[in-house]
């Protein structure tokens, strides 16, 4: 049995199993640390840095840092909030995100974080990158303008032989998400839906079913992003 350890997040006493990633253990303790690239039980990428926290005075990514006994984690401080807000702003200016007509609006993690951090006008200039759309798959519409390079799809959407449907192409500012046209031509409905669901933005769209969820019933229409985790403690009587 794994060793139980105790630690604090913003002064709150937490406990968990030694060696597990901080972001997951924090969630189990009812503390929300924002994520974009992380997905529970998938090998972390640590690429987006939105989960940046301070442990014993040092900046680390909570999704790649195993929790240690007795550590003191800073999470919800003005300094960290501003860093996270800056990351969200950077992601917005690096792509072409038009929430008003995006079918992921209301279900989008990036938009949810924009609201959480009360993003108004980004502090960075817009890049206005021109990225082509890939509509060649019969099931998936790949909107490259919205990709934030979280790599969730590359890591998680694979065929039965373990081959990824998605990959990165190019380097630096020319980096873009791409889809293997050969295998994507035969992707199942279920996998196409999963690809759309795990995408934290509206880059991967399952064709022909847009806007099916009414406004008011979308993920973040009534509660801010992270509320499910923060409410966890209340539903468990404060004992998780």
């Amino acid at each position, binding site marked *: 049995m794994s060793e139980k350890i105790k630690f604090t997040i913003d002064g709150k006493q937490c406990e968990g199993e030694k060696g597990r990633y901080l972001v997951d253990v924090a969630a189990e303790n009812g503390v929300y640390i924002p994520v974009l690239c992380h997905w529970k039980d998938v090998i972390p990428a640590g690429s987006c840095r939105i989960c940046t926290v301070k442990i014993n005075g040092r900046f680390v990514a909570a999704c790649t840092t195993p929790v240690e006994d007795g550590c003191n984690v800073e999470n919800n401080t003005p300094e960290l909030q501003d860093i996270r807000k800056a990351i969200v702003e950077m992601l917005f200016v690096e792509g072409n995100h038009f929430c008003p007509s995006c*079918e992921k609006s209301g279900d989008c993690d990036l938009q949810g974080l924009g609201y959480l951090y009360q993003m108004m006008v980004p502090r960075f200039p817009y890049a206005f990158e021109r990225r082509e759309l890939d509509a060649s798959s019969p099931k998936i519409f790949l909107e490259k303008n919205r990709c934030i390079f979280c790599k969730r799809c590359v890591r998680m959407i694979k065929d039965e032989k373990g081959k990824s449907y998605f990959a990165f192409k190019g380097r630096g500012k020319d980096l873009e998400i791409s889809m293997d046209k050969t295998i994507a031509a035969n992707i199942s409905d279920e996998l196409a839906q999963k690809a759309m669901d795990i995408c934290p933005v509206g880059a991967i769209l399952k064709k022909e079913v*847009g806007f099916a969820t009414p406004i008011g019933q979308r993920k973040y229409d009534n509660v801010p992003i992270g509320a499910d985790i923060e409410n966890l403690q209340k539903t468990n009587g404060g004992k998780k």
Partner: protein
Amino acid sequence: MAQKITIEPVTRVEGHGKVTIQLDDNLNVAQTRLHIVEFRGFERFVQGRPYWEAPVLVQRLCGICPVSHHLAAAKALDVIVGAGTGHGLTATGEKMRRLMHYGQMFQSHALHFFHLSSPDFLLGYDADPEIRNVVGVALNFPELATQGVMMRKYGQEVIHHTAGKKIHGTGAIPGGINKNLTTEERDILLKGDDPLNADKMIEWAEGGLQFFKDFYLKNQEFVDSFAYFPSNHLSLVREDGALDLYHGVLRAVDADGKKVLDDVDYQEYHKLIEEEVRNWSYMKFPYLKHLGKDDGWYRVGPLARLNTADFIPTPIAQREFEAFKAHTNGKPNNYCLHTHWARLIELLHSAEVIKELLLDTDLQKDDLVVTGNKTNEGVGLIEAPRGTLFHHYQINEDDQITMANLIVSTTNNNEPMNRSVNFVAKNMMTGQATITEPMKNAVEVAIRAYDPCLSCATHALGKMPLDIRLIGANGEELDHYRS
């Protein structure tokens, strides 16, 4: 000395336009033009987008009647996804869309009459512009102003409960709708606390109509002589000739009431209607192809609709329709300012339809979407508050939009608006070399009768002040007014 007068920008209309009036050497009006001076390009940037995004994307053309664009696009996409035109949807799908549309018609007509036009009626066309606005109405006629505001609010609530939010919702999707109306939502709209319930809206709509009729009785000579000219009239009508704002066949009548377009399926509108481009305006000039440019232009909107329809399928509005028709002995009504009269009859009709729909239990059913065999092209028409709205899309095999053509209500009214401005200018400008306040007002009143959505007609950004330019025979600017 010859002069050219420009009115720019034009106020209390939606969008940005300017008017130029060219005078000859004897100070007679030689030519007038309503220029639409902005360009938006929705038809271009929708290309490449997934087709199911169109109803949500294209509705951003307008903040007052986005529902029209939302539904016209959805109707075009119904054809593309094989759900048929108009009546191919489930009962819940069609009726939810109808409720959304009549809610929009109600709020938009209330906005247009009470917020934009009533200052002219209540405070006088020649009143100081400082008070001749919605604030002046609120200060001097608080009860009527409150009713106008609350009627608009009610319409917006209808939209909210059908499209998910008051402006730019997502309710209509290709082949149907994404929600039904819960009994709680129905009860809020049907029997909400006073005044926000269906019965009060009908009562107030009748009151608004009575207000206009009283005004008309006292000012008949002015109203009837203002920008009167004969024209063709075009709109959708239900298959049995009834007024139908959501779906129907295309009908056009000439100034005497003879059908010049006889209840045709709108899928082939491009064979019937041509759009002329003129180099001084971003807004095109549509006309009925078989009648040609000179004789084929037509009016759309409330006046045109009551001229093409045989009857109104709700009782109180039908009674008012009969009185309206009797005024011109059953012939088409070509009086520009009677557009307000027609608009208020439609306001009343919309309130009646909303109540009828709210009492229909189909709205609580769960069968929301239908699909069929996909095609690569679809046309969707709807009667928007200001008139017939055309949406036409083609898609490729990858589900991307390759072509979009939008003919919005105000584009359809381009020629009549120009003629109305010309009429007013000839009456008020002849013999004058300067821009006068009554002349400015009259030009705006003429344009406002159509309530043109100039912004969406050019697919326009920015505010909409009034700009008048007076230009001499040699092209020199002699006077310029800008509010």
